[in-house]
């Protein structure tokens, strides 16, 4: 990554390794351990103010800061792309405060921080996927009271969510929820997978990588340990299904990946390309070989 951004007068040496002080990191690691021990359960943690705004990945950044070390290789994506502005900003933050090598290659990374996507390239044992989560509570839009939702989780009382999916079928003839599609983790807790498209939900299931979810503003951490069953909610007569495109990627020709739509002229002509820039790039390189 070329270093073209002028250094702000941050006085980096005044900050601890990876920005957070060691006490805070330990507190976050404890929360992570608890989250791993109880898959899908939202663990409250003492979220700190970060030098990036709430809603821009402060939860993911705190989780990454707590687990990262100099021997890690970091990849940061936003909407599947390595070079969107917020991904660039977060990657630069860690390159500066944690002194880690960064990469855009999914298979080279030990820690991948992501917003809104799971990479197309299958993850491996030992990799950690850190999700940025805006609203960790899958029941929030149905029940705004935190005191109430915690009780519902404790009792596995998830009827309200199933009814909302049923209502969607009654109204639209299908489940019209497209992203942040709720999942049942390890048969116990219903979890928000963060606003990934439901296209990515099947990748969460029994994934060999560790999935950590950080919500900074809401001060919650949760996790899906490697190889844990993750089931998207559905009904026997309305099984879960993912988005499909009639087009293929205009750059690499993939028919398997999540496609972004771009409007390329004033007449509204559209092109579709892979949302995962690394996956697309690798396929193009393979084809040109």
């Amino acid at each position, binding site marked *: 990554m070329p270093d073209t951004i002028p250094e702000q007068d941050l006085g980096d040496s005044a*900050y601890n390794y990876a920005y957070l002080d060691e006490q805070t990191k330990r507190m976050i690691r404890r929360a992570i351990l608890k989250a791993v021990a109880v898959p899908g359960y939202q663990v409250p943690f003492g979220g700190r103010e970060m030098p990036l705004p709430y*809603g821009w990945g402060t939860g993911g950044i705190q989780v990454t800061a707590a687990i990262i070390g100099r021997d890690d290789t970091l990849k940061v994506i936003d909407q599947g792309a390595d*070079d969107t502005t917020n991904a660039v900003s977060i990657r630069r933050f860690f390159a500066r405060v944690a002194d880690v090598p960064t990469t855009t290659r999914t298979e080279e990374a030990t820690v991948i921080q992501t917003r809104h*996507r799971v990479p197309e390239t299958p993850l491996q044992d030992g990799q950690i996927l850190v999700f940025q989560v805006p609203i960790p509570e899958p029941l929030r839009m149905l029940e705004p009271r935190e*005191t109430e939702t915690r009780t519902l989780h404790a009792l596995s009382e998830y009827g309200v969510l199933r009814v909302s999916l049923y209502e969607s079928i009654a109204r639209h003839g*299908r489940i019209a929820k497209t992203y942040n599609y709720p999942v049942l983790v390890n048969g116990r807790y219903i979890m928000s997978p963060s606003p990934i498209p439901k296209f990515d939900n099947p990748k969460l299931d029994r994934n060999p990588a560790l999935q950590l979810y950080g919500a900074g*503003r809401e001060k919650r951490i949760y996790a899906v340990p490697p190889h844990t069953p993750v089931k998207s909610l559905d009904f026997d007569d309305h099984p879960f299904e993912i*988005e499909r495109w009639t087009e293929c990627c205009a750059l690499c020709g993939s028919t398997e990946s999540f496609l972004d739509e771009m409007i390329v002229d004033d007449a509204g002509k559209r092109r579709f390309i892979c*949302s995962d820039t690394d996956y697309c790039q690798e396929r193009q390189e393979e084809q040109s070989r």
Partner: protein
Amino acid sequence: MYVAVKGGETAIAHSLELLADRRRGSRDLAELTLDQIDQQLALAVDRVMTEGSCYDRPLAALAIKQARGDLIEAIFLLRAYRTTLPRFGHSEPLDTSRMVAERRISSTFKDVPGGQVLGPTFDYTHRLLDFSLAANGERPAAPTAPVDATRDLPRVGDILEREGMLEPPPPANSGVPTQDITRDPLTLPADRPVRLQNLARGDEGFLLALGYSTQRGYGNNHPFVGEIRFGAVPVSFVPEELGFPIEIAEIDVTECDMVNQFAGSHDVPPQFTRGYGLAFGHAERKAMAMALVDRALRAGELSEAVTSPAQNEEFVLAHSDNVEASGFVQHLKLPHYVDFQSELVIVRTLRAEVDARRQQAALDQAAE
């Protein structure tokens, strides 16, 4: 082709340069100094210190300068700095009866021990633009009466309390350490110390609107300003190795003791209840709004019906923080095209299904 997302790195670099340039403004004008901000925009500094939860005038002034006068951005800057500081412990509770008050008024009694002291206030200014300020009008120093700093200033509430007319304040630290909301996540229901911390750093505008709503009937509790005082109070701290309190600082605070009606209940005779507000520096609007909302949030404790937003603890505490609110509202500027793409796919599918049904219906009709 397709360069839109590739420009991120350079675009950020240029944006930062442009921002720094715009902050400086015209180079023909002298640059603002932190002392000027501290002295001449003192109330902005007060607000940034209060909602930034950090009493440091030069740092708050720096934040205001860096934020180009955007106070919520300045509060964010100060908080992001504060969070990196080590926490040594907590001070002894401030004793505001030891305040050297520059201003002190009560609206419940015509005169009170210690007297009413108007001090510097906008209250009785006529809001006429003072064009002499535009012409750089210097002011002579204002005459002030000598202040007896050694004399305690009893609180109006204490006097009412002695009569049993006003509920006593909650018992002092009962040995349970007070939770620090900048270190521990908010858990609900929250106790009053947690609520007061949340309100103290809460957005002034948000609390003002909520406090106002209680006056207009959404959770009314008939408030009177028992007392507002502003001035300097000493801060004491007990270092572990000493075991006794030492004074480490003197800070300016504004305190508001709001006295509210309470009809009494089955076991408790009617008496006045209190709502409490405290802010760094001179911030009466904030302290009063905080006191109104504090009292409104005590509805449950006082067996009043919880019917209004200002009485709803979850609603108030979860939405009072302007750094959180500002971040989450503005994150909508970040790309959301993956989610939007998913929505496009489903809306197109649903529309196609409706179209197909319509066409089929038209065909069926034609065939009849």
